[in-house]
């Protein structure tokens, strides 16, 4: 997993609430056997018509660019498909900001080097307002400091992240390596319970 330290970037605002993973990546694109290329179909049915014409959607608006997606409440609900996180990462997003994340999506994001930043509803509105007033406004994410800031708009927010997950993100560690290091304890657990 790619390490995450400090990110400075523009933002892409997606004000819709309850964005489910079927919208992030529709089921018909889940037929791959590897993790590559999902970015092309990120938000496919909101981005393109059936005959592949660009729709009026924020990813098709050149005014907005960057590695930070700012999304409405309850982002990533629904299906457990990790393809949603792969699609966001493949498209180039490293951070998703929302006032609420669905559990499974949040875990999948963290396992793919995408940082989910949960802010309050008021803070989310302030961020949307800042982007609205200047679409190319820059944000800075400092994971070590657990800080999200938009200096131009005077926004400075601290965010929560589990200490273990923070360590994994900063060092680029995967859970699987940690679990493999615990094989002895796991085997002992199996023997004790039988």
């Amino acid at each position, binding site marked *: 997993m790619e390490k995450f330290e400090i990110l400075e970037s523009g933002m892409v605002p997606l*004000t*819709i*609430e*309850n964005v*489910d993973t*079927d*919208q992030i990546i*529709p*089921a*018909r694109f*889940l*037929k*791959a*056997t*590897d*993790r590559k290329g999902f970015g092309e179909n990120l938000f496919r*049915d909101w981005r393109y018509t*059936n005959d592949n014409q660009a729709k009026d959607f924020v990813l098709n608006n050149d005014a907005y660019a960057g590695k930070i997606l700012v999304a*409405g*409440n*309850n982002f990533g*609900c*629904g*299906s*457990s*498909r*990790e*393809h949603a*996180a792969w699609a966001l990462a493949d498209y180039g997003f490293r951070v998703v900001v929302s006032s*609420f*994340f*669905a*559990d*499974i999506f949040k*875990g*999948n994001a963290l*396992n*793919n080097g995408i940082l989910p930043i949960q802010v309050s509803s008021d803070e989310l509105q302030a961020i949307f307002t800042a982007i609205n007033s200047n679409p190319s406004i820059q944000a800075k994410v400092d994971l070590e400091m657990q800080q999200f800031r938009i200096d131009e708009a005077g926004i400075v927010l601290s965010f929560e992240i*589990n*200490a*273990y*997950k923070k360590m994994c993100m900063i060092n680029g560690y*995967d*859970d*699987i390596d*940690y*679990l*493999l290091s*615990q*094989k002895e*304890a*796991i085997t002992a*657990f*199996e023997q004790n*319970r039988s």
Partner: protein
Amino acid sequence: MKKTLFDKVWDSHVVSSVENGPDILYIDKHLIHEVTSPQAFNVLEEKEIPLFRPNQVVATADHNVPTENQHLPIQDALSRKQVTQLSKNCEQYGVTLYGLGHPYQGIVHVIGPELGVTQPGMTMVCGDSHTSTHGAFGTIAFGIGTSQVAQVFASQCVLVAKPKSMRVTVSGDLHPDVQPKDVVLYIIAKLGTDAGTGYFVEFAGSVFEQMSMEGRMTVCNMSIEMGARGGMIAPDQTTFDYVTGREFAPKGEALEQKIAYWKTLPTDEGASFDLEHHFDAADIRPMITYGTNPGMGIKIGEKIPESDDASFIKSLQYMGLKAGSSLLHMPISHVFIGSCTNSRIEDFRAAAQYVKGKQKSPDVSALIVPGSQQVAKQIVAEGLDRVFEEAGFVLRQPGCSACLAMNDDKIPAEAYCVSTSNRNFEGRQGQGARTLLASPVTAAAAAVAGKIVDVSQQ
């Protein structure tokens, strides 16, 4: 200390806890399917590590399989590749596979319980959010992403923080026309699509105590639709009777010992939950959804609520519906009875009982998709196939089918489909398709009438 059902099962599966971090939770059974497992097998390959406990993994092909001509090679090249890849991976790593053509093949959350793989007090995971279904047995069962599928392959464990606990109690007597699906749609409509996020839910009260195992599965299946990682119902005699005699269930003395243990699992009197909700069963009526998340549900005949929220307006626009209007008597063109929510034999019995002696509307295409080969066999054994066929319904072979439209079973754009599945998200049943979630009886009644009807008013 007083413990909840959830605490008891969770605590007995914690290998250890990471300091300031998640628990290492031991997993008893890992179910896999063709769509969310290939990339996890790739991780084993890349890291050159073995699959740690192949005997605790069960595989089936369900998500993208066709529901016609399953004896022939799959026509869609990508689907065929995924299913073939699953077979190869299972063979290479020694995993039991109930693939196409096997008498045990079916939707992963239908075959687990029916084969006795699912048992009370277990921990179970699957790369599918509806793994919550198995919670009906008093099992901790939840969906995981593919990275976690790889972790369970490698270590038979997942790293996960213990969720908070919620109890949803529904007491009193249900109206005779109310189905388990109506109960869960009612709860989600009351609490909202994100109310359970961060929680594991226990469903308690007389309504669930009196419910069949299949009804309990329908309820727990949709826990994820209120955001909860999983739902559970305390195991009781109904549970023990269901498990007894199933292929992979314990037998004889081993079963007696297990049952004695399972009887210790229900929540202790006086144990506390982080959050409690209570509902009166008598208030529940047949339900239907009008929007694009499962929390947007109403009693059939109620009016669609009004809201100036932008996401709500967008949702109604997609559905082609107006706030303040009623869905009662609205024409529909498609009916789907199937999915891991409602594709068990009781669902088809209930639908067939309504349909018997009636004809479907000529304006409706009505699809019946059993959850497993065993359910399909039972449908024939009970003569339900003739009931459906005589009424003009189309009976297909098992799979996830039009619930998520990964195969050819798609609902056309702008068509209204009364569906017994679990999600009414935009495009879920096909690009532009408009899904109205309901129970199998409401779906069957819609197919017959060609419009939405309230069976409790007939």
